[in-house]
């Protein structure tokens, strides 16, 4: 987005945050503030109206904020800055009974894709984003994003139209599907070997709302603590299977991963299959829970026999 747009949105955001806090509508505003390094931002939690001017909005607000609503709601109503991804995360948590719509006040912001502060190029997760603007909000600050992510035209891997097609969205998946099985195995074995099990992927995921993750449960034979290929594969595949039919495709897991695992390719494999097999809806577009594996149809496709 242009500098003037970013400034205008930042002003509008600060003003709205100040008003909401001053009027006591919300107890806290979750947004972004500047970090130490050039272009860097970091999640901000503002509860004093005087501090609202710390908030910023622009091209580098890389964090998807939805999940913070869960931690902050105990103090009162939480205002959360939402773009497409954040708002779908909020919807997802509502669908999973983790949040009530009433517990949050959503500040809708237009988004044209976020950039990596270090390189200035569009984040991977934003290149395949299908929903730029908030799908639900209480107030919309600034106009909807007319065309696609700005970086899109500059970057050949992203489309320049307003919609990322399924083909673009599933490029990585399709690419892997086309590989020979041994190559796929090698690819993922290498990836799972890299995994350090820091669990940043699950912690950043708005679908991961278990009180105690399966990996932390001491069930004989369930998930070993060892960091070896087999256990890492178990963790990563199970994680995908736990969230796959609810994944809102925010890409936050992949961004958070310090080791660069192709997590979105795994997530999107499920998303793609459920979509093509069972006509699954895109997750988080509404507050309804329409997880494809929680339903069935008598006429479901039969791949077994």
């Amino acid at each position, binding site marked *: 987005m242009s500098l003037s747009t970013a400034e205008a949105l930042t002003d509008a955001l600060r003003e709205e945050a100040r008003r909401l806090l001053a009027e006591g509508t919300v107890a806290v505003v979750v947004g972004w503030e500047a970090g130490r390094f050039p272009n860097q931002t970091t999640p901000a939690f503002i509860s004093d109206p005087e501090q609202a001017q710390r908030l910023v909005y622009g091209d580098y607000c890389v964090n998807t904020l939805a999940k913070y609503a869960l931690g902050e709601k105990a103090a009162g109503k939480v205002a959360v800055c939402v773009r497409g991804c954040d708002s779908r995360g909020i919807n997802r948590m509502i669908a999973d009974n983790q949040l009530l719509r009433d517990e949050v006040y959503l500040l809708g912001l237009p988004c044209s894709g976020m950039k990596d502060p270090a390189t200035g190029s569009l984040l991977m997760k934003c290149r395949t984003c299908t929903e730029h603007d908030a799908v639900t909000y209480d107030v919309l600050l600034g106009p909807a994003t007319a065309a696609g992510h700005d970086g899109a035209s500059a970057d050949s891997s992203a489309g320049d139209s307003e919609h990322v097609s399924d083909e673009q969205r599933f490029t990585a998946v399709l690419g892997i599907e086309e590989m020979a099985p041994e190559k796929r195995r090698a690819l993922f074995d290498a990836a799972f070997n890299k995994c350090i099990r820091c669990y940043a992927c699950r912690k950043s995921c708005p679908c991961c709302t*278990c009180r105690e993750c399966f990996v932390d449960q001491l*069930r004989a*034979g369930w998930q070993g603590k060892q960091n070896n290929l087999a256990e890492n594969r178990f963790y990563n595949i199970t994680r995908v299977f736990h969230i796959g039919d609810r994944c809102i495709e925010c890409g936050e897991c992949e961004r958070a991963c310090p080791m660069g695992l192709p997590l979105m390719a795994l997530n999107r494999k499920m998303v793609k299959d459920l979509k093509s097999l069972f006509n699954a809806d895109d997750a988080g577009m509404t507050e309804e829970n329409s997880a494809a594996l929680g339903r069935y149809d008598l006429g479901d496709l039969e791949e077994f026999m």
Partner: protein
Amino acid sequence: MSRIGVFICHCGSNIGATVDVPKVVEAARTLPHVVYADDNKYTCSDPGQQSIRDAIEEHDLDRIVIASCSPRMHELTFRKMLHQTRINPYLLEIANIREQCSWVHKDIEAGTAKAIDLVRMAAAKIDRDTPLYTTTIPVNKRALVIGGGIAGMQAALDIADAGYPVTLVEKEPSLGGKMVMLDKTFPTMDCSACICTPKMAEVGTHPRIEVRTCAEVEKVAGYVGNFEVTIREAPKHVDYELCTGCGLCESKCPTKITSEFDQGLGKRKAIYKPFAQAVPSKPTIDAAHCRKINEGKCGVCEKLCPTGAIRFDDEEKRSTETYGAIIVAIGYQLIDWADLYGEYGGRVASPNVITGLQFERLVNASGPTEGHIQRPSDGTEPKSVVIVKCVGSRDPHKGKAYCSRACCMYGAKHAHQYLDKVPDGRCYVFYMDVRTPGKGYDEFYMNTQRDGAVYLRGRVSKIYEQGGKLVCLGEDTLAGATVQVEADLVVLETAMVPADDADRLGSMLGVTRDKDLWLSEAHPKLRPVETNSGGVYLAGTCQGPKDIPDTVAQASAAAMKVCILFSKDELESNAMIAGSDVGLCNGCGACVAICPYQAVTLEEVTRRENSVMVTRTVSNVNPGLCQGCGACTVACKPGAMDLKGFSDEQIMREVEALCL
């Protein structure tokens, strides 16, 4: 530390021939926590069972593994045996080394190795078994019957006659359902009203039957033996305590409305009984059409009523009561053919294209024409009638794929009735097949043909009006030609489809619906009146199209099932059911959505967590409803839901043991 006993059966030579039993015993002795292992010639025999009981005492065993035939054969036998010991009957695992080992493998070495694996798996699993207990559920001996047609009335009467109180809920102002609309019943041609109305009266006066008309079931909670049912009664605007049913109000009411009972062919008043023999035999005010209620004018009925029973300000009533069993008998409705068959005129069809049920009213002596068959358009007697069967039935493209079962017979009945009343008339019946299985049915059909009905095998492709006649274009597949028949009246024998309420009631009661929304029985052959919801039974056409004798038979069968349930004071629940770990549950509700028995609900709990009291929403399994399928355990991402007897940990232990 558990103390496991392992008992390996030879089953004569059935097992012993392919499995080296002593070697299996030896291997079993080395397994963790196994303190005793022995073999037995016939474990299921009395001496075999005695030796297990002795070993339990002697070696202080607290759980046992029996390696023998399939658990499908003797699991119950051995559980019963454990009842006589101090071991909980669920602390038993059976390794199937006969059907799935000795009988299918020839190589003694491979068979023995596999038998050892199976015993090891069972021992690993049983190490994680916990004692399980059944709970008892009290049975509330009151039945609710939904629907006051012939099925509901029959079921209510049977249960009431067996000594149990029954509430019968009917959404119309009178009992009787569809049967009382019919003129005659095939094949005996006895008058439908003559056999139906005495039943209605009997129900209405039965000391153990409470009839609620204009009423609907709004909400059902609970489970077998303990359903909490909320019934909503629409206002009748007449105080039935005071009303004597004299009929003065109805005769003087100035508002005339199309009669639902006469299928739109006759008129009724705004204060009305749907038909003369209605039960209860008291009128109801149709609030939507009453001038007093809508415009504040009129009030003639109130002025005339000798007992002052009119209540214009009557309101909806709701009551919640407890029932032990529910019979669903909500019947059927006819398919809305006009929406589907534009070629028959659709929504703008001639008034002379009528349904079979309309024909029943036309031919009925107490119907709008007093039994004279007349064309609705001009009141003339039709000299030729075309009867079209399978309108909406056996027509997957436009209607339903199934056969509605009764139409062949009532089509024949209509032809017979028409030819009887209009001897010089001509009657053509278009049919696909004639299906007349039933006592006296085929004879009746043959007689109808002898009466002069012309049966044409083929479908009708078009019906249109031309020159005051209805032209029916069709095919005679036997002659291999298209035919064109001109008729004065066309009777469409339309398909039966589920009542409007079927889907709502089905989901409320946890009864599955098939693809056409008929309520599904628990098993198509062996449990034809039960449903997947314990304590909920089906009677009549809500389960699928059927004729009156089948309906009545099913109603009595459903009543019998209720009586069997009521013969016990308590029910024993399944012991191997799901349970949720409150600490792990995050209340996402995935289990609720997936449970086919509606056994899982979300509820709030307040508990101490890390020194603070927290109120959270968590899932809760109703032991009365859970059947132990375990679908919820997989849907549960937090791993809070587990299945007793087949827990995650038990299964995992088995997997681990197998891989050694």
